[in-house]
């Protein structure tokens, strides 16, 4: 796969601000990518198996999933960095699009899907953890790994496809088109802001909005 010359130039700034695999003793990029995909797959299937039918098990499975994703990314060499303030603004704008577009396209009320379990504070904490974990791994470590290997568009494609497929065990195939689109949008937020803080903020806010929708 060949990528345009702009690809790695677009990857590099992101590493400086929010993830810096080059700063640590990173494994070979191919092994790193394989490890990330494997870790994501195992965490996703384990979560689906453990989710169960009670609020307690769902919250526990969600928390473990979020932590696991962050750990996988850390092992692969991803490191957090203080995000610039404007990332938060970009993230908020990104969330507005993610939430607003479906409301404009389907103005009627949403059907309930069991996404409001437990006390709001606990649910919100776990939701933020899951969204952050997914962004750290997908738009952070995985994006970096595939960007370095194959260029920007491969990074966008792989992280967006992974984002969609990882939701299938819990939500079915119907989510794939929208989640691929959302994945590309979140990649765009990363490229616009230079780090994962913006997509993490957008992702978390959009998920939190489901409590009220």
């Amino acid at each position: 796969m060949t990528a345009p010359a702009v690809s790695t130039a677009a990857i590099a700034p992101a590493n400086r601000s929010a993830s810096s695999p080059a700063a640590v003793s990173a494994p070979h990029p191919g092994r790193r990518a394989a490890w990330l995909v494997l870790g994501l797959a195992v965490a996703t299937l384990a979560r689906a198996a453990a989710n169960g039918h009670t609020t307690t098990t769902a919250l526990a499975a969600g928390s473990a999933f979020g932590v696991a994703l962050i750990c996988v990314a850390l092992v692969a060499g991803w490191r957090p960095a203080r995000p610039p303030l404007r990332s938060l603004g970009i993230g908020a704008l990104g969330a507005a699009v993610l939430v607003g577009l479906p409301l404009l396209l389907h103005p009627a009320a949403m059907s309930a899907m069991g996404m409001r379990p437990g006390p709001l504070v606990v649910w919100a904490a776990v939701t933020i953890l899951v969204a952050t974990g997914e962004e750290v791994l997908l738009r952070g470590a995985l994006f970096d790994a595939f960007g370095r290997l194959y260029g920007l568009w491969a990074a966008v494609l792989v992280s967006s496809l992974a984002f969609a497929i990882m939701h299938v065990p819990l939500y079915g195939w119907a989510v794939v088109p929208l989640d691929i689109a959302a994945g590309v949008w979140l990649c765009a937020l990363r490229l616009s802001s230079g780090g994962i803080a913006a997509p993490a903020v957008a992702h978390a806010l959009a998920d939190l909005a489901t409590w009220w929708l």
Partner: protein
Amino acid sequence: MACRRSAWLTLSLGFVLLVLAGRVAPVGQPPLYDGVVVEDPYRYLTPPPGAPGNPTSTSDTAEIAQGRSPLVYSGTLENPPQAQLIADEGAFVIPAGSTSVITTIRPIAPPAPVPSGSLAGNVYEIRVANQGGIDLAIQQGKTVTVVLRAPNGVTNGTLYRFSGNAWVAVKTENGGLPDLFATNATQFGDFAVVLASAASSAGNAAPSLGIPTASPSASSGGGSGGGGDSTPWIVIGLVAAAVAAGLLWTLFGGSDRTASGGT
């Protein structure tokens, strides 16, 4: 500059994809799926041994303002609801003198056997009337959506409506989770999820009774939502293929674009 151009290009692509995907999204699908999902075990009107019973009913009243019905949402009390009704503002033809819209959803015994296949879960009677008990018709061009949940693990059902003397299949969409089934209703009545004959022989439901022959909580997806019988294996296969590709690449070639001076 190149980076900024890539960012704008990706933003534009993402926005267009979001619009396109939003147009084909299932009824009520929220923008993203994450956080925590809990799906209660299915409650049967006539539960088999060991399965939960006592499915809930609901009755909601909404006031009519300026001759138009408000946006209506009504759902049974399970999580997620086993039956839901969602109606646009002004979705009902309002007879003179009406002051409120009353939505009633309740599980009932099957009025008749389905012509083929089997019922998955309960039959729900869905009624919308004014305060005087006069049934309201659906305004043409307005969207009234009925969403039914099937027993856990049932992912290949079709919604049917009992028309008074026969079950009629209605156009069915995914309702946002694998076992949620939605339709844009043109009439009210009794609704149910029906499994095709082949599917019912797989052990999800007994003919015409909505009673599973297997444990209702035995979700083949391995989780609350499940992904259907084959979905987890398809996902595992895709993931295994991705991992294998990564490992092959690691063993036989490729180079780090950045490390090799790609920047």
